[in-house]
């Protein structure tokens, strides 16, 4: 990996949106910073970094996962569990030697 990535590191932004559209509102978010410059943890922010997924794209984040739309299992139509609309974004950033 050191050879492939060189001094380039990945930052990952995970946005949970209010429906399956990329321009719908951000409800929850997580950031993992492979550069080591930022350290995020649970409950460290009350304000989402972007209002919508599209706004994140306009700020330079590249979409690397679109969540599939999977119908509910029969008999399980009314139960709730994980967020359904989990979009994953990345940025690549060079770090010092």
């Amino acid at each position, binding site marked *: 990996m050191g050879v492939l990535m060189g001094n380039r590191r990945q930052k990952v932004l995970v946005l949970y949106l209010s*429906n399956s559209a990329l321009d719908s509102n951000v409800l*929850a978010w997580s950031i993992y910073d492979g550069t080591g410059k930022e350290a995020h943890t649970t409950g460290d*922010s009350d304000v989402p970094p972007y209002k919508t997924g599209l706004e994140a794209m306009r700020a330079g984040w590249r979409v690397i996962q679109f969540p599939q739309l999977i119908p509910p299992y029969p008999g399980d139509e009314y139960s709730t569990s994980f967020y359904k609309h989990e979009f994953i974004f990345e940025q690549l950033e060079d770090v010092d030697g």
Partner: protein
Amino acid sequence: MVDHRYLLNSKQMASFVTEGYLRFDNLAPDTINQAAMREFEAGMRGAPYGTPLSDVYAQDSAIGRLLAMPEVQGIIQSLVGPNPLFDHHAIHVRQANEAAAQHLHGDAVIDTRQHFDIQLMYFPHAIPLEMGGTLLVPGTHFRRINESEIGRYQNMRGQLPMVCDSGTLLVLHHGIWHCGRQNTTGRIRYMFKIRLNPTVRQLRLWNTDDLGDPEVERILAKRYPWFEDASGRLEIMNRSRLWRFLTGNPEYDTDYWLTRVENMPETLLAGAPAQGSLHRQLQ
């Protein structure tokens, strides 16, 4: 049995069903809080799972005195009945300058019951924001997840950091999503948690004098900023189901969500051919 005036009312019960928690600020007096801190630092004896709660704590211990307060008895009796079982307890400690929070989680395992356990979280000392405290996401208790599977969710709209005065008691539905937030102070943070199991059917155990108050329905219709557009409607339906279970009213509904999908009429229109004869005609 505790005096009727100490039981929760219907609006508080509706809040518990909606939010998944109730909080009682500054409930325990300083004498209990200070004794609790000494006992936590010295270490506390537990009891086997399933022990009657009344057999677990010495009457003169801090937790024994806390649980004997009529206000606490009323809370417990309203939610899980008069003689609950002790599940387990734990003294939760966040060390000074502990930078990383716990991952978000639900306790125990995935749990599909309408019957519920409660967890009492007791904060013996004041908790400023920089000390944590426990982070809750109100309304998440209907979401079926297994413990730390939700650990990747760092922040959710509407999350609530527990900032409180000493002696505050938080009462949780077992399913609510929560975690211990980071403690950036130079002091250790303590929280005591105890889980209780009901031994009776959870049916109108509280003071139901205000059951018909319109405020109850308003509380049960509350939406949260973390709700997805579509599944947020399912949250309201699941909430109505729990309210039906607790009140014994099989027709309770908020905004017609359940009633609509339960409507499957079987009454035949007068003069309509019986099913068998229609089948013969089609042949």
